[in-house]
């Protein structure tokens, strides 16, 4: 390579580069202008072309930097952008032609979305460098051929100037592209370069022309008109025709005469009702002077008025028109000026209303009024009489009103009293609630205190309880022994008292729940006796169990043991014979068992029988008996009640023994209930079926 052609080439390249840059700026400007148009008109087609043109700027900048383009593909992003630049413009033209030929709607959203997709898609494809050169170039050629064909189709279909411009633009692009590709295989020469640049310049000029056609060519106005306005106009024309027809119908069907005359008083439009009023036909009236329908005085009147109504003031007059047969018709006439778009007066609109009928009606009305006036006079007399009686009525009314006021006052007082009462009531309720809470709290504290005290007393009682009998046993002095016996009895009494108090406190506490078990009492009674053996060991006690087998009851084992403990110890305590006989019985009654505990003891006197269940109650004769705390039977009763039963006592009198009765819920009742339920279920199912 020698340096001379290189130098020449260099200089030429400088000029060429300059032209490429100019072209690039031209396109950039066009893109910005289209974007601006989009903002003004909101036409997506413009936005599409703005986007489509933009990448071409890259192409030309690249060509300006490295001209001629390299034969081998460069792996730079700049080169990719250069290659990509040619695609969007082909896409834009393809979509706009395709839309025009096949779609043809005003809404361009769908083609634009497709365009954006392919725009970005091709961008990423080229940047990622995944398309072989051959496919890229052949697809560009294929695309060019397709848009060429499409523009020819458009020319044939629409026969419009802008279609020709599309065709020319596409041709120029094709020439530019072919001449540019010559560099790939041939040496550059100045003719070729000029051809390329000139073709590109022409191509973009044609495109620009499509968007801004000179008004003289008057193929409407640019691409906006080409692609949307035309449709719009057709539609508007149809709408216009439609609305015109509608208005005509409305005007024709009006029950008012409508008449238009121009500046020369020549009638240009008459609706059928106006014609009917004046007994002409519409055709007869149109073309005639408006003044022909008026008499002389009317003519003068209207002419005079016309001078004033030339401003757009609306006026209404009463005026007589002449019918075809020269009879008169009284109307109200309403005149207003008509203007064209430029504000020039073009005529007068006259609205006529036939009021001759109205006039007649008015006369009739007047007659009737007269008659009314006459009758009014007569009425006046009656009124006077009435007024007198009204005076009397007013007095009475006044009285009533006063009474009413007093009543109202009383009512107000009453309601305020009622309010006070409500407030008082509320306070009372609140207080009751507070008190109840207090009482509950105190009761709880009492229970807690009793049980704490009980526990604290029990432990120190233990050694006393154990040791005192031993000490008493060891004591030789009978006097001391007797004293020790008294001490021990008191300790025992204290112990019993503590235990029973605790038990009762526990039974009274709402927190104590029963743990119920179903058990056969006839068998369980032996277990109880087994456990209570210390009570009667060494004493002559005979038990008789007459409870029938299968007496299944629901009981709390521990509490039932306590119950029997109390009853048995009671029976032993209040025995009169050497031999104590205690018998147990049970009878089924409805849903529960009545259990009887019968002894052969001293019995209870009739006047005491109602008190035996009272707390700390002791029959007189045993008041000083240290063995009795007076709590045992209260405990028994509480236990039975906790089980949901009842307890009572019967005695035939002193020395005739005592029978305690208490009820316990039977187990069988429950199962029976279940069966009944099951039956009712079945019945209800059957009825449903």
């Amino acid at each position, binding site marked *: 390579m020698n340096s001379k052609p290189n130098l020449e080439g260099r200089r030429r390249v400088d000029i060429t580069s300059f032209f490429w840059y100019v072209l690039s700026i031209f396109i950039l400007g066009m893109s910005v202008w289209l974007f601006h148009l989009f903002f003004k008109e909101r036409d997506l087609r413009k936005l599409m072309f703005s986007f489509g043109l933009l990448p071409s700027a890259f192409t030309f900048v690249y060509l300006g930097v490295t001209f001629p383009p390299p034969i081998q593909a460069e792996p730079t992003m700049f080169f990719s952008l250069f290659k990509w630049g040619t695609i969007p413009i082909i896409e834009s033209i393809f979509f706009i032609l395709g839309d025009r030929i096949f779609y043809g709607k005003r809404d361009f959203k769908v083609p634009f979305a497709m365009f954006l997709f392919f725009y970005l898609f091709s961008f990423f494809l080229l940047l990622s460098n995944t398309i072989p050169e051959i496919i890229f170039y052949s697809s560009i050629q294929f695309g060019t051929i397709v848009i060429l064909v499409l523009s020819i189709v458009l020319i044939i279909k629409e026969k419009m100037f802008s279609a020709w411009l599309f065709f020319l633009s596409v041709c120029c692009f094709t020439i530019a592209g072919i001449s540019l590709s010559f560099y790939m295989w041939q040496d550059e020469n100045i003719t070729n370069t000029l051809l390329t640049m000139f073709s590109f310049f022409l191509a973009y000029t044609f495109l620009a022309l499509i968007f801004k056609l000179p008004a003289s060519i008057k193929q409407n106005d640019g691409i906006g008109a080409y692609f949307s306005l035309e449709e719009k106009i057709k539609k508007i024309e149809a709408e216009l025709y439609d609305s015109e027809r509608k208005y005509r119908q409305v005007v024709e069907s009006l029950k008012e005469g409508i008449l238009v005359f121009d500046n020369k008083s020549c009638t240009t439009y008459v609706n059928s009702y106006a014609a009917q009023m004046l007994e002409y036909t519409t055709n007869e009236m149109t073309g005639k002077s408006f003044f022909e329908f008026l008499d002389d005085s009317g003519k003068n009147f209207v002419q005079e008025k016309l001078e004033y109504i030339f401003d757009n003031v609306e006026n209404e007059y009463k005026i007589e028109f002449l019918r075809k047969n020269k009879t008169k018709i009284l109307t109200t006439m309403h005149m207003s000026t008509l203007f064209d778009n430029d504000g020039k007066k073009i005529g007068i609109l006259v609205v006529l209303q036939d009021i001759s009928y109205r006039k007649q009606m008015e006369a009739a009305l007047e007659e009737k009024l007269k008659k009314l006036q006459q009758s009014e006079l007569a009425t006046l007399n009656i009124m006077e009489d009435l007024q007198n009686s009204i005076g009397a009525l007013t007095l009475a009314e006044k009285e009533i009103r006063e009474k009413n006021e007093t009543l109202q006052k009383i009512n107000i007082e009453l309601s305020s009293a009622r309010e006070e009462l409500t407030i008082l009531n509320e306070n009372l309720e609140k207080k009751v609630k507070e008190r109840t809470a207090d009482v509950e709290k105190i009761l709880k504290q009492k229970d807690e205190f009793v049980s704490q005290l009980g526990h604290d007393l029990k432990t120190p009682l233990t050694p006393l309880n*154990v040791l005192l009998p031993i000490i008493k046993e060891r004591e030789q002095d009978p006097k001391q022994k007797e004293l020790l016996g008294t001490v021990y009895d008191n300790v025992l009494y204290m112990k019993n008292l503590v235990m029973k108090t605790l038990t009762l406190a526990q039974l009274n506490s709402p927190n104590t729940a029963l743990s119920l078990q179903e058990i056969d009492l006839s068998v369980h009674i*032996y277990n109880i006796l087994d456990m209570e053996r210390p009570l009667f060991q060494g004493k002559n006690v005979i038990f008789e169990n007459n409870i029938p087998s299968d007496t299944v009851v629901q009981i709390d084992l*521990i509490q039932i043991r306590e119950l029997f403990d109390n009853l048995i110890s009671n029976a032993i305590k209040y025995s009169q014979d050497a031999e104590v006989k205690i018998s147990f019985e049970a009878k089924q009654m409805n849903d529960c068992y009545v259990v009887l505990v019968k002894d052969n003891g001293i019995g209870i006197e009739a006047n005491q029988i109602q008190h035996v269940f009272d707390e700390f109650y002791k029959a007189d004769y045993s008041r000083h008996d240290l063995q009795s705390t007076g709590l045992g039977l209260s405990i028994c009763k509480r236990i039975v009640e906790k089980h949901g039963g009842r307890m009572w006592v019967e005695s035939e009198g002193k020395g005739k023994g005592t029978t305690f009765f208490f009820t316990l819920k039977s187990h069988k009742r429950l199962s029976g209930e279940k069966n009944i339920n099951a039956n009712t279920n079945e019945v209800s199912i059957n009825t449903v079926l």
Partner: protein
Amino acid sequence: MTRTILVVDDNPDVINSLKIGLEDATQGYRILGAENGQKCLKLLQDNIIPDIILLDIMMPQMSGWEVFDKIKNNPSWNKIPIIFLTARTDRTAKNAGGFLGDDYIEKPFEIVDLKNRIEIVFNKKSIIKTR
């Protein structure tokens, strides 16, 4: 035959009184005392195995329940019968005492009553003869 009874109670008066009371009432009872659960377990660990344990429930530090649990979970001790001594009257104590242990007795008790219960446990036989 001498029977060893271990009394576990935090009140030494209770232990002493039981010592006197039980030894006095029956010949052949040897009474040991432990003032808390740890001492009781210590005795057992020293291989002093009583024939019956009288166990208080409410003790400081280690409750009767814990001691009971430890004894019953030890295979060499779990055959020892236990009677609970309790000042508690609530259901839990009664239930647990009666069903977990061999018996329970509520403080304060009669020495005769306690002795009977101990005998019952020893004899392990039904006492119902009286009808």
